[in-house]
């Protein structure tokens, strides 16, 4: 109740802040500015309070809230419990709003210092109020009896034994039952990546709202050039955080989800890649503007686009518009998300582009004065290539929408589309990221460039040849490896040349080195991976992919997962992998977690497929009508009746725990014995208890009830049971584990490249932020 009130208060405060800031632009007064500031700060405080309330409800297991019930449970560990905050649609919008409002406080100080507070914060507050509005319409504070009235609301007296209930209207005798357990978190999300990855992504989503606000704010104030210098550190920050989020998501998919690789061109992955590519393009365009004042108009568009694309991506992945074409189906959106997100995009597109086209004529044009071989032009081409790649990915990701408009049925793209279209752009981009570094502003002479290019061009042949020798010849792939290596060595050369200058100047070169390493790693680990499916018999070594693998058995871990031990030996070095497999009640399916052995030059990726018992255990489901003999592997079985006492019967009527026995008689030769199979019911949950029967030949059988059908006329009663024969040897000596083993060469390049890239971004942020400061003083 308080939670929803705080959300509403936050929405109103943010809206007031936006209105006061806009009013201030037309009639400046100190009071108006203070009021606007107060409004914004109040909005941030409200959102912090609302978030804390939600966190409290989750931590204290208040299952009367639908959201808490839907995603958490009493069995989750503390970090995972905290992460259920953003496991659903409503909570993740709460998190986004929280980050946006807290970032706004920093932005407020920053813009006040740079004398651009009112117009930037006006736009930013408007964005914040829109995000708040999403939570006003649908927030995580709905009660379970509002969501599922038919299931929990009761009338009349409360039967004894029900403690978890609440009176809705005691005078009328209306009350609701409250769940004692939560539904729990999707098992695929239950790992530490869930604890860190979404936050980073939402931080990235929040930070691209800043360049948008600067650009639209600049247009509002008719101040067309100064803003970009101040906005640059934020754009770089956005690109860094978003990039880190994307790669972390990729590592999650690789390491725990068992997708086989870190990138599957899934809509959810693409949807953060698209704004990132444009964000990076925008950084390069702003670099040109800073240098010689050109691209003023273009940079408005480039600064607005990342935020627009984040909105579009959110729409794609969270409105349900992609339907069944995505593997990610964590959330069940509902129409509210669809229309609100569409309205969100529409409003900000109209606002951003509308004001841009209105002001376009006023924006100063700076005549372009650079030649074909100049850094400006090459940077421009690079930005175009990045945008082009983003566009192609966007078209591919939107293909269910496009095809459903064309022929009425949504269909998705094959992954080959992305490889075929993005690869040529990748070649261009990596080449330009080297070429631009060697060029001078305005105009370059051809000869010295050739001279500078010579060494990297030769060195780049080395990785290319190494990849060529790995087998599988594909011209474009090798060209890509070559251009990436060329970029790698060229940027090293740049760092070598400027080593005596300020280290901060190397940010760009360091980031390029990171990207180049990642590109080479992508090719070697994905295109040159080797995959084998092997059957490992217990304790019998098998040679595959250059490794000697031995299956050593399995153990049931505390978390209920079966961990298989696979020893891996190569050249005298011994390692042990422990891939796991378990059955998830929640998704009613087997979940497989791979294990990865990380070597310096390659990863060995081991995914369990299945465990077979070759000694021939058997299992059968049988229906036993009363007093009819049935047979299972020589055992004769007969269901003879139930035991269900008056006492138990009345317990059942009162909704109290009760139990029931079904008697099954087993005839084996001359011997017969009666098994009492038990069913017990507590709080509406029914459990069937297995019973072990040891036959005369020492074989072990397990009997479990599946279903009971008691009838008034007891001769028509029947039961359904499962009989399972265990394998002869209890030590599982005959088990065969089938695994999929994959070798991923040089995958470490991807992770080293990622760290390098982020370091490069950091250097750039520091440099640009200092420059922005210096300009002021």
């Amino acid at each position, binding site marked *: 109740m308080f939670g929803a009130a705080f959300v509403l208060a936050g929405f109103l405060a943010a809206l007031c802040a936006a209105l006061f800031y806009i009013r201030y632009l037309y009639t400046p007064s100190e009071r108006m500015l203070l009021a606007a500031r107060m409004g914004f700060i109040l909005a941030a405080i409200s959102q912090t309070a609302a978030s804390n309330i939600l966190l409290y409800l989750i931590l204290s297991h208040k299952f009367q809230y639908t959201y808490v019930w839907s995603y958490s449970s009493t069995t989750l560990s503390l970090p995972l419990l905290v992460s259920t905050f953003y496991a659903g649609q409503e909570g993740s919008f709460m998190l986004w709003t929280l980050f946006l409002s807290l970032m706004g406080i920093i932005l407020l100080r920053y813009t006040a210092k740079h004398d651009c507070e009112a117009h930037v914060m006006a736009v930013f507050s408007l964005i914040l109020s829109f995000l708040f509005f999403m939570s006003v319409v649908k927030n995580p504070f709905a009660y379970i009896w509002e969501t599922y009235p038919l299931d929990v609301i009761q009338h009349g007296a409360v039967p004894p034994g029900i403690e978890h209930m609440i009176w809705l209207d005691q005078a009328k005798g209306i009350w609701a039952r409250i769940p004692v357990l939560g539904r729990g978190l999707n098992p695929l999300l239950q790992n530490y990546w869930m604890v860190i990855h979404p936050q980073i992504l939402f931080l990235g989503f929040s930070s691209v709202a800043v360049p948008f606000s600067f650009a639209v704010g600049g247009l509002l104030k008719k101040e067309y050039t100064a803003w970009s210098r101040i906005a640059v550190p934020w754009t770089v920050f956005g690109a860094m955080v978003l990039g880190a989020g994307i790669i972390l998501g990729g590592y999650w998919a690789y390491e725990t989800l068992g997708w086989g690789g870190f990138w599957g061109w899934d809509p959810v992955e693409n949807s953060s890649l698209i704004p990132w590519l444009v964000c990076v393009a925008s950084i390069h365009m702003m670099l040109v503007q800073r240098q010689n004042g050109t691209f003023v108009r273009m940079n408005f568009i480039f600064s607005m686009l990342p935020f627009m694309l984040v909105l579009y991506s959110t729409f794609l992945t969270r409105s349900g518009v992609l339907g069944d074409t995505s593997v990610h189906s964590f959330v069940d959106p509902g129409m509210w998300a669809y229309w609100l997100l569409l309205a969100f995009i529409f409003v900000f597109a109209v606002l951003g582009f509308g004001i841009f086209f209105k002001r376009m004529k006023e924006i100063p044009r700076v005549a*372009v004065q650079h030649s074909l071989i100049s850094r400006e032009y090459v940077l421009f081409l690079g930005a175009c290539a990045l945008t082009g790649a983003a566009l192609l990915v966007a*078209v591919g990701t939107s293909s269910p929408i496009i095809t459903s408009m064309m022929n009425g049925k949504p269909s998705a793209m094959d992954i080959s589309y992305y490889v*075929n279209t993005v690869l040529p752009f990748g070649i261009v981009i990596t080449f330009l990221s080297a070429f631009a570094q060697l060029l001078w502003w305005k105009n370059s002479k051809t000869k010295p460039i050739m001279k500078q290019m010579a060494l990297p061009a030769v060195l780049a042949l080395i990785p290319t040849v190494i990849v060529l020798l790995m087998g599988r010849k594909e011209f474009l792939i090798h060209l890509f490896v070559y251009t990436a290596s060329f970029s790698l060595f060229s940027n090293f050369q740049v760092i070598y040349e400027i080593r005596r200058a300020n280290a901060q100047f190397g940010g760009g070169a360091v980031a390029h080195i990171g990207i180049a390493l990642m590109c080479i790693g992508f090719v070697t680990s994905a295109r040159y991976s080797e995959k084998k499916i092997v059957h490992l018999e217990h304790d019998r070594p098998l040679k595959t992919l250059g490794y000697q693998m031995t299956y050593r058995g399995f153990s049931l871990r505390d978390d209920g997962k079966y961990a298989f031990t696979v020893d891996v030996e190569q050249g005298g070095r011994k390692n042990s992998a422990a891939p796991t497999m378990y059955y998830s009640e929640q998704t009613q399916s087997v979940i497989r977690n791979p294990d990865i052995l990380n070597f310096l030059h390659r990863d060995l990726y081991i995914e369990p497929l299945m465990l077979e018992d070759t000694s021939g255990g058997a299992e059968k489901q049988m229906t036993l009508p009363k007093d009819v003999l049935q047979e299972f592997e020589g055992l004769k079985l007969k269901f003879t009746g139930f035991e269900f006492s008056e006492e138990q019967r009345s317990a059942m009527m009162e909704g109290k725990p009760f139990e029931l026995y079904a008697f099954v008689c087993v005839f084996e030769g001359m011997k017969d014995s009666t098994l009492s199979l038990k069913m017990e019911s507590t709080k509406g949950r029914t459990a069937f208890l297995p019973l072990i029967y040891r036959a005369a030949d020492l074989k072990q059988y397990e009997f479990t009830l599946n279903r009971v059908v008691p009838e008034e006329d007891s001769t028509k009663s029947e039961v359904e049971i499962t009989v399972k024969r265990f394998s002869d040897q209890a030590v599982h000596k005959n088990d065969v584990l089938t695994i999929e083993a994959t070798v991923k060469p040089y995958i470490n390049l991807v992770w080293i490249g990622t760290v390098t890239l982020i370091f490069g971004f950091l250097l750039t942020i520091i440099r640009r932020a200092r420059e922005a400061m210096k300009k002021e003083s």
Partner: protein
Amino acid sequence: MNIKLVVGGVIIILGIVLGLVNFFDSNVEYGDFAQAKKTQKKIQVKGEWVKDRESSFDADKIQYTFYLKDDSGEILKVVLEGAKPNNFDLANSVVVKGKYMNDHFHATEVLTKCPSKYEGSSQQVKRTL
């Protein structure tokens, strides 16, 4: 100036062509088995798993074979590259992606639609009361 425009223009046109060609080439359209037999392209067919026909897993080839009845009622053998998918027993509708080959549909990918994902929240509430 002109050369720059030409270079930029060529790149843009190449990009658009590249995108269009691949878009129509890689788009996996929906169809039924009759259409799958006519085309060489990868196609996706929605249908129902025929549970009373044989289904088996070949552990050596890692192929799962089953029969699928498409929306126009035709029943065809489907050979899937890989193990029996999770949720397969619960799925009330199955989408297979692949090509028609000789006597069967050779699928590289299977999507399952499970009833549990779309309904049953109210049963789940009851279970946890």
